[in-house]
């Protein structure tokens, strides 16, 4: 429903965001995953219409944002963004939540009614009369969320919403976000650097690294250097002394991503045609959708998926040594 094409935004020579093609599904919750400085915030502020892109376009239904110019107010009334450090206006919580409605000219009675409902939805109805700036960071973030929800946007953007707040409020906020799935008129996009959170709350995870969406499953992403190799199969050195082989024309400093579903876990070393075989220790295990995700430390931490059955049969407990085997073609290099 949100279509992004050929989008480019540069900040001097230091950083450039480049999104060739990205579609955000309507009514879904999409997560933008990436480390700090990867461009998630830039992308969100472009979608929010707060900054103009240098090139490219963002389309939503019948509206479109082009490069260079500021977004029209209709766009900004359909798309609302919450940042990781929310800014609250002077005044009470109720007044803050009501700002968006006042901009739209909503009459007073309707305003008050909607404000109350939004406060309830965010679980902060008892804060209505409090001075907004006296609240803690976590409470302030919930006010910001109520403030955004009350205007009933078509697109809700959240930039690292739980980054700066206490655990209780973070949990409440995550519950709230999760509850928004299925509201067919609301598209949610949130940015995070937390893989777990991305998976927990969203239906789709898009990785952004160094200003570009990653064309791979967003797990097992490591930085490395091409150490050698002939045409085709190259050896790439990762941190922790790990070396893997991958099929790539690239050289120099690269990123690799290894699909967890392409990694075979065994208790003993396998002899196979697969070029990569690493030994590691299981660090943790977590259940995930009838699968078990294992974190294995093999010099760098790998994320692998096994079925519940395999997990039980092989007695894969934390602390066990296992072998990870995967083909060079399972490694995406970019």
């Amino acid at each position: 429903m949100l279509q992004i094409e050929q989008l480019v935004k540069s900040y001097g020579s230091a950083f450039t965001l480049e999104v060739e093609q990205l579609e955000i599904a309507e009514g879904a919750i999409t997560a933008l995953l990436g480390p700090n400085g990867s461009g998630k915030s830039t992308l969100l502020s472009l979608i929010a219409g707060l900054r103009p892109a240098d090139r490219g376009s963002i389309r939503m239904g019948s509206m479109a944002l082009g490069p260079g110019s500021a977004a029209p107010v209709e766009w900004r009334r359909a798309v609302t963004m919450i940042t990781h450090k929310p800014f609250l206006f002077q005044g009470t919580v109720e007044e803050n939540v009501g700002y968006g409605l006042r901009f739209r000219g909503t009459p007073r009675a309707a305003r008050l009614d909607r404000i109350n409902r939004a406060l309830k939805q965010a679980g902060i109805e008892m804060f209505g009369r409090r001075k907004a700036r006296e609240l803690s960071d976590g409470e302030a973030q919930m006010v910001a969320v109520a403030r955004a929800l009350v205007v009933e946007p078509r697109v809700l953007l959240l930039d690292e919403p739980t980054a700066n707040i206490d655990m209780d409020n973070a949990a409440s906020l995550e519950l709230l976000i999760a509850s928004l799935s299925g509201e067919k008129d609301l598209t949610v996009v949130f940015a995070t650097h937390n893989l777990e959170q991305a998976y927990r709350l969203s239906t789709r995870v898009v990785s952004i690294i160094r200003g570009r969406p990653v064309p791979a499953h967003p797990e097992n992403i490591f930085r490395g250097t091409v150490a050698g190799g002939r045409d085709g199969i190259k050896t790439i050195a990762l941190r922790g002394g790990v070396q893997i082989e991958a099929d790539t024309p690239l050289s120099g400093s690269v990123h690799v991503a290894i699909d967890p579903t392409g990694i075979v876990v065994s208790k003993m070393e396998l002899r196979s045609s697969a070029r990569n075989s690493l030994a590691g220790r299981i660090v943790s295990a977590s259940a995930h959708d009838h699968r078990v995700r294992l974190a294995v430390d093999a010099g760098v931490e790998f994320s692998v998926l096994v079925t519940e059955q395999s997990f039980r049969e092989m007695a894969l407990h934390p602390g066990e040594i296992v072998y990870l085997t995967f083909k060079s073609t399972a490694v995406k290099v970019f």
Partner: protein
Amino acid sequence: MQIMISKGVFQLCILLCALIVTSIGSHAAERLKLAATTSTVDTGLLDSLLPPFEKKFTVKVDVISAGTGKAIRLAENGDVDCILVHAREQEEKFVNEGHGVNRRAVMCNDFVIVGPENDPARAAGKRDAVSALTAIAGAQAPFVSRGDDSGTHQKEKELWKEAGLAPGGAVPSPPRGAWYVETGQGMGATLTIADEKKAYCLADRATYTAFSDKVGLRILCEGDRRLLNQYAIIAVSPARHPHVNYIHAMRLIGWLTSPEGQKMIGDFKKKGFVLFRPNAYQEGRGIELPH
């Protein structure tokens, strides 16, 4: 809520502003600008003299207190409508050069030389103002002058010239020396400064009388014919400055020289003394020296 409050406050301010500006502007129509020498202001003469005039002719007189020299310059500029001054030579030059019309004598009094109680220069008792000043200069006793080109200042410089104590030249100028101080201010302020410095000073009797309880100076020389002080009123020429309020200037001149106005001048007393002798029809006369 706060946005509503600030809007209301803003509108209130605009209203206030408009009210203030219009209330100030509405006075523009019937106003007469009079530059009057400081002795007529500081003594309170004009404060008592003008209200009946203002009432009778429905006009407001703006009195700008200025020494004769400054008053004449304002008039030459067209910044005032008429002047009330007391320096005969300057007045005649003003009229002859076409800046002013209809000069009329109004009232007179005399100057006195005042000084500290102990009179270090022994200027007392000298009926001759010139010899008194000579004594003061000889003793290098502190002397405070108006120094502002006022009528009093003009008179003072003429006396110094006659005493031969001023540097030469056609235009009278003041003597030089550390004992001689020029304040550049009005009569009242100058008397206060002279009192502070325990210095001698040439003052008009009217202002001195009005201030006599505030300063510790006493009259040391009076009665010399030279010390006659004649006041006149002149209207600024409408030919020179078409915008001036000529009608009301003429009315003021007429009123001050009318029997009614002259009587009021003669009735004006401070501490039992008549400060200004009306002499509209007897210029140069009308006072018997001493009072």
